[in-house]
């Protein structure tokens, strides 16, 4: 199986080179955000106020890990369902986000925004939280610490495995993959 390696944060060229169905290993810095953090970021955007993190080129990971034991970097850390972030994603892309990692289907509005702003939607394997936690070398809270597991964390990842679901050209592996194997 062919695998592409990418370094986060991402450039437009890197985003455009990714196609639905590609298997990708990410290394570099990514940020976490779930429902509550998205809500806060969007509120700041609407007021025109500065964000606690610079979204330019960033990859956002939808995750709410289990509590880390004292000797661990992070607890079990697999993706959560992305659809809950659909309402916020076009705005995030407009403000510079280049990719998000989650699992499950996205709305048409998100797919359209990925094409408009040159972004990509990636899926990590849902339920592989133990394996994925081993690809995270560093984890620190950078904003909204009051949200606990839902705070924005800065993660340093190495060879973090994802599959491209929706690319910037309209490709969708959830549609194309099922079509290829249906009988």
């Amino acid at each position, binding site marked *: *199986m062919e695998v592409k390696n990418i370094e986060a944060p991402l450039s437009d060229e890197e985003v455009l080179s990714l196609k639905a169905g590609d298997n990708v290993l990410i290394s570099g810095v990514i940020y976490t955000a779930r429902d509550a953090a998205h809500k806060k970021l969007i509120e700041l955007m609407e007021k025109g106020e500065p964000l606690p993190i610079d979204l330019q080129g960033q990859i956002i990971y939808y995750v709410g890990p289990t509590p880390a*034991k004292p000797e661990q970097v992070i*607890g079990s850390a697999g993706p959560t369902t992305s659809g809950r972030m659909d309402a916020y994603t076009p705005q995030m892309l407009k403000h510079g986000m280049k990719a998000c990692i989650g*699992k499950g289907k996205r709305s048409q509005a998100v797919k359209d925004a990925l094409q408009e702003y040159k972004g990509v939607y990636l899926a990590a394997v*849902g339920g592989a*939280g133990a*394996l994925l936690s081993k690809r995270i070398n560093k984890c620190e809270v950078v904003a909204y610490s009051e949200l606990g597991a839902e705070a924005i964390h800065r993660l340093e990842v190495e060879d973090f495995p994802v599959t491209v679901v929706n690319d910037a050209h309209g490709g969708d*592996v959830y549609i194309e*993959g099922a079509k290829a194997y249906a009988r």
Partner: protein
Amino acid sequence: MRELAASIVSEHVAEMCQEANLYLGDDVLQALQNSYEREESPTGKEVLRQLIENVEIAKNEQIPICQDTGFAVFFVELGQEVHLTGGTLKEAINAGVKKGYTEGYLRKSIVDDPLYDRKNTGDNTPAVIYTDIVPGDKVKIYFAPKGGGSENMSTVKMLKPADGEEGLIDFVVEHVKAAGPNPCPPIVVGVGIGGTFDRVAVGAKKALFRPLGQPHPDQRYAELEQKILNKINDLGVGPQGFGGRTFALAVHIETYPSHIASMAAAVNINCHASRHRERVI
């Protein structure tokens, strides 16, 4: 009358909470391995490989299989000759859940009020508990931590008796197809048939507690399980919805007698981390 201290029940429950979230049952692991052998899609195969490796890492390094360590769901068969001392069954189970989830570094995913406050209870209580009073002096506890992503992809429909087998198959397959990648396939599909609106959903939930690879005892339903499983896998949705042969690992049906006017049906989906444990005290 056998006396049993509630604290003993709590200790068992606490251990079950941790075990279920760290060690995937051999039945599910075997089903994942069988699927890995059969899978035709390279990406699908890689997903299954990651899931099998994930189970190993979880066990060896004591990291929960999935970060969603679930709503704690229990089916309890309480022997009518057991007298619980020092607390009620409900208190004993909730105390065990609190201890297991806190000491086991499991995620607390329960909020107190579903609509307005949504404040985390902080210890993953309360559990969902179904109790049956049965003959004997034993307590049998079945436990499953139920993830939210797959639970959200579940449904109940009041079918007509005239819908028959075909109507039931269509209902299940169409529903699972619409869920697609969201419930973290490969999935386990619990199907309830019969009973009232509420009872049929409990049947679908109970179906998820049956060990994988164990067919329904009634030959007709065992064949129906296989038939639905084949139809689901023929959709091509595959592991994680990326395309492939393995959309579901199993279909389990639980039935209950039905009103003459009804044929209630329910689908409760579980992800591949189909965690369940049972103990007899």
